[in-house]
């Protein structure tokens, strides 16, 4: 179904709500003097968007806005995931000491704008739309990263992000122009038709263009070699924004990557497996990236002494794991990847939340600040952080284990044994650095100069929900896998 501009709006309600909401925020910001309620408003808007998404049944898939966007199960999954990420980011912002000093109106408005942009990324059905939405996400992210205007680290992070991002998107759009040259179109469906039915494909040209495009998309998911920005940006940005970038931006990146490499480049055969265009063996390319990403992320994380940096490198490694589902070229793999991204959302958001709780009280983000946390009044956040970190390692009874289980299952089923072994060995390596904060919190005794931990219900409430979900969904995860399974449907209409 190819819908025109007006007919499309019916499927575009969450985005409309968010856009309307962010405009409202700007106006209210001008009118009220007590800015603390702007966060409440942003929270209501995000929750509303999430509710709208939850209530929208995916009955019929369609092209929206003259084939610019696509409305299908896959988009709905990522809409839901990104909206959840935004909700967590807003919630955390309201409980963050760092953000409290900023211009509330602008902050939340840009956060919501970024959310809309991520939605668009997940829904793109056209290279132009893909580029625009990706740039939109980038621009808003640069601003949010540098939002702590009086903090040098934050500014430096924003600058680095901007420069790396500029290069990546320039490279990407150059690659897109090659694809356009080969296929004569920016439309994913037309590109697919051109690549799969082309008599003699200029294989090398296609390959180069894919590599160039990967620079932009790989940048968003922070895969090697486009990961360099992540540690600095994650460390410099305000913690709620770090969280938002780590979970939302990464999910949107994976959505775009999947939509481009699967329905746009490859094609689904009748037997339910995916087939690459003749000669264009992109999974091999991504396999190498995947292996290097997880290994490098894990090895670099071993050395970190700052929690945010540790989690930044861990999130690079986690992107490597998620890519495992991507390279096996099967629906099994994509489903596993989707499930894993959801799991990653819970555990990474939780981990950053605890980092924020500790930073709120002590003003510190280094691992040393966690010394003896369990013995100096912070036993609840200590246990919660342990749950999140163990989940990131993939220890059973957490959703992280189930996520890895599905990934390894897909990898083994696809016959990628070496990849499976590299993956599990990486899990073992990662245990070492994930256990380090746990060791510091429980096994070390406090010196007394670490600062007291003051709990507040606002943050503890969210922490409880995330930790509870990490465990509950690690024991009974059918709802999530069913959702991922139902959402695993790409709309590929007639050209």
């Amino acid at each position, binding site marked *: 179904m190819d819908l025109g501009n007006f007919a499309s709006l019916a499927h575009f309600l969450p985005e409309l709500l968010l856009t309307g909401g962010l405009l409202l925020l700007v106006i209210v910001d001008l009118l009220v003097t007590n800015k603390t309620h702007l966060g409440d408003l942003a929270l209501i808007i995000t929750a509303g968007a999430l509710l709208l998404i939850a209530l929208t049944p995916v009955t019929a898939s369609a092209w929206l806005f003259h084939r610019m966007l696509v409305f299908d199960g896959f988009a709905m999954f990522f809409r839901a995931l990104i909206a959840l990420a935004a909700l967590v980011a807003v919630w955390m912002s309201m409980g963050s000491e760092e953000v409290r000093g900023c211009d509330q109106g602008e902050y939340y408005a840009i956060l919501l704008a970024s959310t809309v942009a991520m939605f668009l990324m997940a829904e793109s059905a056209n290279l132009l739309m893909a580029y625009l939405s990706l740039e939109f996400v980038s621009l808003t992210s640069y601003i949010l990263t540098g939002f702590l205007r009086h903090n040098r680290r934050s500014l430096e992070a924003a600058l680095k992000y901007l420069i790396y991002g500029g290069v990546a998107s320039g490279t990407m759009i150059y690659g897109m122009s090659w694809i356009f040259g080969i296929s004569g179109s920016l439309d994913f469906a037309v590109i697919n038709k051109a690549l799969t039915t082309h008599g003699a494909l200029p294989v090398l040209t296609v390959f180069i263009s894919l590599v160039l495009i990967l620079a932009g998309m790989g940048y968003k998911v922070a895969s090697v070699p486009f990961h360099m920005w992540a540690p600095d940006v994650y460390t410099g940005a305000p913690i709620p924004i770090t969280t938002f970038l780590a979970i939302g931006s990464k999910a949107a990146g994976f959505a775009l990557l999947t939509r481009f490499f699967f329905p746009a480049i490859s094609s689904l055969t009748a037997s339910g497996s995916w087939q690459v265009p003749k000669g264009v063996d992109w999974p091999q390319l991504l396999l190498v990236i995947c292996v290097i990403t997880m290994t490098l992320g894990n090895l670099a994380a071993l050395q970190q002494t700052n929690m945010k940096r540790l989690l930044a490198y861990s999130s690079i490694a986690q992107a490597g794991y998620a890519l495992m589902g991507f390279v096996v070229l099967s629906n099994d793999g994509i489903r596993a990847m989707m499930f894993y991204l959801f799991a990653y959302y819970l555990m990474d958001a939780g981990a950053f939340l605890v980092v924020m709780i500790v930073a709120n009280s002590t003003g510190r983000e280094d691992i040393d600040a966690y010394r003896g946390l369990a013995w100096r009044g912070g036993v609840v956040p200590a246990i919660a952080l342990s749950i999140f970190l163990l989940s990131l390692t993939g220890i*059973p009874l957490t959703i992280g284990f189930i996520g890895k289980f599905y990934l*390894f299952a897909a990898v083994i*089923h696809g016959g990628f044994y070496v990849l*499976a*072994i590299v993956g599990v060995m990486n899990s*073992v390596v990662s245990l070492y650095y994930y256990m380090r904060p746990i060791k510091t919190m429980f096994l070390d005794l406090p010196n007394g100069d670490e600062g007291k931990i003051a709990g507040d219900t606002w943050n503890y409430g969210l922490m409880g929900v995330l930790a509870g979900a990490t465990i509950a969904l690690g024991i009974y995860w059918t709802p999530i896998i069913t959702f991922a399974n139902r959402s695993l449907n790409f709309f590929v209409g007639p050209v």
Partner: protein
Amino acid sequence: MDHALTLITFVPVAGMVVCLAMPAAMQNACKWIAAAATAVQLAIAIGLYTSFDTTTTAIQFAEKYQWIPAYHITYFMGVDGISISMVLLTALICFISVFASFSITRAEKAYYALLLMLDAGMMGVFVSLDFFLFYIFWEVMLLPMYFLIGIWGGPRREYAAIKFFLYTLFGSVLILLAMLGLYYYGAQSTFDMTVLASNASHYSTTFQRIVWIALFIGFAIKIPAFPFHTWLPDAHVEAPTAISVILAGVLLKMGTYGILRVNFAMLPEATHQLAWLFLGVIGTINIVYGALCAMAQTDFKKLIAYSSISHMGYVMLGVASFTAAGINGAVLQMFNHGTVTAMLFILVGVIYDRAHHREIAGFGGLAQQMPLYAGMTGFAFFAGMALPGMSAFISEVLVLIGAWQTYPLMTVFGAATAILTAGYLLWTYQRIYLGPFNEKYAGYLDLSFRESFTLVPLAAIVLILGVYPQAILGLLNTSLVHLNQVVLSTPGPAVALLH
């Protein structure tokens, strides 16, 4: 007895929840909660033991529910002769180790909660018949172990704890991969261990070998088999007494249990081909090397830890023999080693509690000051040496009789090590308990009632099984002989040279 297995696994979990719910001021009560939970568990285990039908190879007390139907994952519990003996051992050792823990005074709430969680994890491993469930329990006990060693352990506890964790995680991820391989490339996609076992012939030989080795490494780390044993002395030395008791008493058995339950049952062909090397030769190395290392130790606890490695070698050798005597002896040895080493570690703990060191050379003539203690240690040492009349005698002799028929040369090494064992144990006894009395230890109290309470039941079991081994052998024989038949009916070893 409908839900006995669920109950026996989750009673400790209930105890853990109660412990955690205790207000900090009343955390002293946690030890009694743990004692109560493990007592209930032990009672159920005895109930299961008495109502177990020893004449059938069928799975008993089975419970099966859907869990994640889309992936054919079920909540499937059940026991056969092999697992029921381990259930009994686990319940017994856990009950005793609660009492051996009474000297713990720091953060008791967390300690007993973790101890109970560990208990539940180990019990779960022995009663699970769904591979996925098995794996979950297998991994779940890593974490409490890490904290129990890491928080309440000795001076190098952090190193020992993370080493233990890394080693075992490395092994278990290999098991995970092997499990997925069995799931996808079998006759049907299932985690049901009984179905996987009955479809064993479906796998190709190469596949069987690769998966077998992956599983073996995973389980060998737990045993621990040479050369994967280096975590064990560290973990033992640093762990608090009760945790050493659990570690040696139960945890190590999970490795050999896994080999029987998974490698033997699911990959009989590869087992028949590879067992001589991986179980026979490595088992013999374990026996001899463990004993030699034990002889060289100056630390009492490390000595016991190495002797543990040596004694687990008998289990491997017996299992690899493919004879009824050998395999029965091996599983009986698993049980006996559990009780004997538990005693030995408790005894080390007793002296460490008083002297705060474990240097063998630092003691001397303790028998004069602590006669009861010295007597009990003598008894345990004799049990460790496998003297006739003690339980370990029967099991080791059975192992050697069985192994002789298959691997005469290795059996010679295994049997000759008994001399080494006697040597290092008697020499240790002489240095600690006999000879001139070291005045430093004057005024030390003999065994307390609580300490005796942990030792006497174990000693009684050692004696009873020494005279009447049928109490455990009766459980095992039917299941083990059947398992052995399955393995023997497949193509034989690639190298017949060693026979």
